[in-house]
C-alpha cells in the first residue's frame, strides 16, 4: 500500500483483528517504552503496568491510529500520560515513601565496577534528575534517553517546541548548580570526559 508506514501495515492487520500484529508491534517497541516508563516512574512494577496498559490502549483505539506515520510517538504520548497518572496515584497513596525514594534516588541498574568508577557522579546526577519537576524530567528522559528531537518531544508531550527547549535548559542549569555545589563543575566534567 502506498504511503503506508511499515508500522501502519501492522496497524492495518490489527484493525482486521489479528492479535499477532499486536505481538509484532510489542516486540518492536517494548524495550523503548518500558525503559522510558522505568526512567519516569523509577519503579519496575510500575513500568510493567504502564507498558501493559499502553499496548492495551493501542489495541482498543487501533481504529483511530494513523497508518502513514510510525506508531512510536503515539505510544510515547500514552506512556508519558500513564506514567504521570501512575506517579500521581502513588503520591496520593504513599506520600512519605515517595519523598524518601526521591531523596535516596538510588541507582536502579549499575554493575559493581561502574559503581566504583562513577557511582558518586551518577548518583548525584540521578538525584538531581529525580528532583526535577515531573514535566521537566519527562522532557529530559525523552531527549537524552530516547533520543527524540525537539519537535518529536513537542508532539509527544503536546507543548510548543520553545517550551521543550526551555525545560531542557532549566534541567541543565539545575544539574549544573547541583554539581557545582558538590564540587567544581569543570572538575566533574573534566573527570567525566
Amino acid at each position, binding site marked *: 500500500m502506498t504511503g503506508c508506514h511499515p508500522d501502519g501495515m501492522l496497524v492495518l492487520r490489527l484493525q482486521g*483483528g489479528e*492479535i499477532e500484529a*499486536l*505481538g509484532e508491534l*510489542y516486540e518492536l517497541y*517494548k*524495550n523503548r517504552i*518500558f*525503559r522510558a516508563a*522505568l*526512567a519516569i516512574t*523509577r519503579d*519496575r512494577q510500575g*513500568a*510493567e503496568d504502564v*507498558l*501493559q496498559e499502553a*499496548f*492495551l490502549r493501542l*489495541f*482498543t483505539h487501533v481504529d483511530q491510529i494513523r497508518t502513514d506515520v510510525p506508531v512510536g510517538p503515539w505510544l510515547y504520548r500514552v506512556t508519558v500520560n500513564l506514567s504521570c497518572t501512575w506517579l500521581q496515584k502513588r503520591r496520593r497513596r504513599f506520600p512519605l515513601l515517595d519523598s524518601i525514594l526521591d531523596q535516596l534516588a538510588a*541507582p*536502579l*541498574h*549499575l554493575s559493581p565496577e*561502574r559503581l566504583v568508577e*562513577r557511582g558518586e*557522579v*551518577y548518583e548525584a*546526577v*540521578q538525584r538531581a*534528575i529525580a528532583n526535577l519537576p515531573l514535566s521537566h524530567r519527562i522532557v*529530559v*528522559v525523552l*531527549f*537524552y*534517553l530516547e533520543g527524540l528531537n*525537539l519537535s518529536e518531544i513537542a508532539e509527544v508531550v503536546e507543548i510548543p517546541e520553545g517550551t521543550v*527547549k*526551555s525545560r*531542557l*535548559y532549566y*534541567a*541543565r542549569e539545575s*544539574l*549544573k548548580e547541583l554539581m557545582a555545589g558538590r564540587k567544581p*563543575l569543570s572538575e*566533574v*566534567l*573534566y573527570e*567525566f*570526559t
Partner: protein
Amino acid sequence: MNSPEQFAVHPLDCLIRETLQAQVGDAEPSPRSWRRLRAQAAHLAAAKRGNHPRRWTLGESSRVDAHGWVAGWVFARGLVAFPARIG
C-alpha cells in the same frame, strides 16, 4: 541561545545521557508481561465480537430460567406442605 542543540557535544549532555542509561541499563519487561497482555487482548477481542465468555446465549438463559421456575415451584410447594404436615 539556550538551545540544547548548541550543547550537543557538551560533557554535561554526555553525563546526563550516560546516567540515564546506567539507571535503566538494559532493563527489559518480563516475558510474563506479553502473555498477560495477549490474554487481555484476546478477552477484549472476544467481547468486541459479542462472544463474551460470561454472556449467556439465549438458549442457555432460557434453560436457566426454566430450572429457576421448577426450583421455585418445588420450594413454594414445600412451604405449603410443611405446616399442613405438622399441623
